[in-house]
């Protein structure tokens, strides 16, 4: 009997969340310490799994399986491969830094961390799930705490609207996918929700073409695919900092990942049939998202729309259906997750001090908080796909794959990168350089050590993957090979 590491990772947050609820509400320090301890455990274990995963062997490792609802062939079934392992690590990182950033939260931190951790359990559960029912179960667990987190602790102006919009969008997506999943289950005749078994089910091409859109787009709503991306910038902006980090950093990957696992991997014929449409929509994501980001006057909305744009690159990578594209998409999910968490952390730190996010009213923050400015610049360079940063490592293979699949799309999508450079430069120039408005002079307090740790961790990872891609790229490639095998070895 080996240690069930993945289960421990999955259930640490929720158990910690329940224990936190038992702490009296006014003992806020204990609440925070408990939250930090849980996130350290989750991060440490996911890092350990990441490092000990046997890359030469590949395939699914750390597999655990237990019968759950035997009558329907449902099991609790978890394992990691090259595709989901970086995402597990990503979740650990964002959870840890999210707790650090939220240290100063003073309104009911107990409930805040409890809900955040329920969310984290849902996210971990989806990433490691190898059973369709299991995946859906945790997927929805990840969706609903978001409502409360945004509605209670979010930005007062839009939180109610944004929380409701986000929850309904995501719920619509997941229930639509549910119908598709049930159709797969009954059509396969295997009496099993085991995804590895369903991969071999050989669904008829007609069936795949009919159901692929429901399943893929059902999940891709959470991945922010155009035209279902509308919930995401509103949600990002309304959410409190740690939740924005989780939301853009991890939750959008959840949608993209599920779309890949369930849509593309189980219905490969459908994926081939519909890939032109996905290419088209994802290109709109990339270019249109970047353009909209360009004209935003609110700092946080810039980042919100940049997520839409960058998730478009992930979808583009999927739609290439070739090895380079999928590897790039896998790397982009990780890279963008860390990058956007960093961005939102920075936005939160600026907003907490300036109490405004209007870009025109900000300026000169690099003098008051140099580390924050540096971190944002690192994130910006990642975002532009600058060599030496993780963004390049991810985007280069995507464009390589894209060129091979559909050169014209590659050319159009590359425009998005140019626009990205423009809006990132604009934000860096306006917010961090130039002269600081008089009302902020002397009022900008330095950030505390916990914030510093969070920024250094996030920026450090982006640089590390950028200068040493070998820590991640081969792993993701092995995961992409799994997908390629199902697609018929294209």
């Amino acid at each position, binding site marked *: 009997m080996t240690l069930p590491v993945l289960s421990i990772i999955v259930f640490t947050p929720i158990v910690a969340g329940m224990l936190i609820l038992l702490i009296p509400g006014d003992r806020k320090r204990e609440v925070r310490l408990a939250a930090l301890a849980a996130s350290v455990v989750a991060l440490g274990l996911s890092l350990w799994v990441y490092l000990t995963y046997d890359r030469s062997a590949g395939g699914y490792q750390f597999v655990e399986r237990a019968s759950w609802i035997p009558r*329907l062939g449902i099991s609790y079934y978890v394992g990691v491969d090259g595709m989901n392992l970086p995402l597990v690590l990503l979740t650990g990182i964002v959870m840890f830094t999210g707790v650090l950033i939220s240290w100063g939260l003073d309104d009911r931190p107990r409930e805040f961390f409890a809900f955040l951790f329920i969310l984290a359990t849902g996210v971990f559960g989806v990433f490691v799930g190898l059973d369709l029912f299991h995946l859906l179960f945790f997927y929805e667990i990840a969706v609903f705490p978001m409502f409360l987190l945004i509605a209670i602790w979010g930005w007062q102006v839009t939180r109610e609207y944004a929380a409701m919009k986000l929850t309904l969008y995501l719920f619509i997506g997941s229930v639509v996918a549910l119908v598709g999943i049930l159709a797969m289950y*009954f059509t396969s005749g295997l009496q099993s929700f085991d995804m590895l078994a369903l991969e071999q089910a050989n669904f008829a091409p007609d069936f795949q073409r009919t159901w692929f859109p429901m399943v893929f787009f059902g999940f891709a709503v959470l991945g922010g695919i155009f035209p279902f991306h509308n919930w995401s910038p509103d949600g990002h902006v309304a959410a409190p900092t740690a939740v924005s980090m989780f939301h853009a950093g991890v939750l959008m990957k959840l949608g993209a990942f599920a779309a890949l696992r369930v849509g593309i991997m189980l219905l490969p014929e459908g994926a081939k049939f519909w890939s032109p449409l996905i290419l088209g929509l994802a290109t709109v994501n990339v270019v249109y998202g970047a353009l909209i980001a360009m004209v935003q006057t609110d700092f946080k909305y810039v980042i919100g729309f940049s997520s839409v744009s960058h998730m478009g690159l992930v979808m583009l990578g999927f739609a290439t259906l070739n090895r380079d594209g999928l590897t790039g998409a896998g790397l982009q999910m990780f890279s963008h997750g860390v990058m956007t968490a960093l961005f939102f952390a920075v936005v939160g730190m600026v907003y907490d001090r300036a109490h405004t996010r209007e870009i025109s009213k900000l300026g000169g923050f690099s003098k008051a908080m140099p580390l924050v400015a540096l971190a944002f610049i690192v994130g910006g360079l990642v975002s532009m796909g600058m060599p030496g940063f993780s963004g390049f490592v991810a985007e280069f293979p995507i464009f390589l794959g894209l060129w091979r699949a559909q050169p014209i799309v590659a050319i159009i999508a590359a425009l998005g990168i140019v626009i990205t450079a423009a809006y990132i430069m604009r934000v860096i120039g306006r917010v961090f350089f130039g002269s600081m408005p008089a009302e902020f002079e002397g009022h900008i307090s330095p950030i505390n050590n916990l914030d510093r740790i969070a920024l250094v961790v996030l920026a450090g990872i982006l640089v590390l993957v950028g200068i040493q891609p070998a820590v991640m790229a081969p792993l993701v490639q092995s995961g992409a090979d799994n997908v390629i095998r199902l697609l018929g070895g294209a």
Partner: protein
Amino acid sequence: MTVPTYSPSMIAAILPELLLLVLAGLVMLVDLVGQGRRGLGWLAAAGLAGILVAMIFLGRPSSDESLVFGGMLRHDWPAFTFKAIFLFSAAITCLLSLDVPRVGTRGEYYSLLIVATLGMCLMAAASDLIMLYLAVETTSIPLYVLAGFLKQDDKSAESGMKYFLFGALTSAVMLYGFSLLYGATGETNLYLLVEKVRVGGLSPWFLGGVGALVLVGFGFKVAAVPFHFWTPDVYEGAPTPITAFISTASKAAGFAILVRFVLAFLPSVGVYWTAVLAAVATATMSLGNLLALTQSNIKRLLAYSSIAHAGYALIGLVALTEFGAASLVFYLAAYVVTNLAAFAVVILFARSAGSDKIADYAGLSRRSPGLALVMLVAMLSLAGMPPLAGFVAKVYVFAAAVESGLIWLAIVGVLNAIVGLYYYLTVLKVIYLYRSEDENKPILVPRTYALALVACTLAILVLGIASAPWLERALQSARSLF
């Protein structure tokens, strides 16, 4: 088919009914002679829980489902399962009634409740038209009285009166259907009737007409559209524990007879009935959810939501498979425990704040974080979120629909689930987000209520996370309906 009218072993079949009768008498007696009036509710709740335990150990049906008492009753797994649901619901209702003013100390209140439960148990087992009708009335008449129990309260009186008028009318229509059935076949036993119908000779128009008449009665009990009009007014006016009881046990009892009837008859009366039931399910879900959207009173909101849930449960019936019937039973169990938890919160809140308006729930998460959490669990379970009972229950009924090729019905179901999520979230928004001036006034949670809340919340979680053994039990029940 001959069934002996009596043998000693048949006592086991009506063990819960016998004990309920004893308990009802006992409660009256204690009320006459006793001093500590608050003990009455405890006695009733403990008695009901005891009967549940006794039934589980002594009243299990044998493997061959058998008709007993001359074919009046059937001692089988579906009856057993439904009886367990009724007894659980009644016991929780007694706990919830304890501290309700002008209700919780009255012996006759508990006696009526127990008699209604007795009627439900007979409904679940009845396999003869006469028995069925008697059981329905034994259930309904005490419930009419209970709905109007607060005599000085206009709304309660209105509730009782409305419930009675609707109930009397629909049961008369149902009885008319029964008499036509008897007239055409000369049988009152359900299973002999089915044989006769299968042999043929009866015009499908006649059967369609009779089926429609009978469905009126059943539709009223489960609050299916278009027989739902009584629901919001009755739910709003009745004492809240009784609302909880009507919305859970009484609805489940309606489903117990509906599922037995439909599954017995349907194979022999033609497929167009599937279409009719599917239409009823669609209308019930959609109308319930849409009307719930605009409610400002929590009891009315839950009334419309309970209509919608009847619709979801009907999906399991429409599937006409073993798994479908099992999913219906599971759905009802999940719905019953969830709704009881929701009403427990409503009762406690009304006790402290004196209001059922949703807007007044503002600040509840600060006044009583525990109560707010239970409401969160209940609302999310009703909305169908994991890891709660409502999620797996919904997955099961939708799966049953897809299995039977009714993909469109599953899609209607999930679209409705989205609408449902919206209004449940609206309630949670008020509870967790809005502030109120009364924030510093805590809400008292007496120990009895805490017990009921914990029992229901645990049940919601257990059904949601470890649903396998319960699904097995539901399947076992479903099997003997075919």
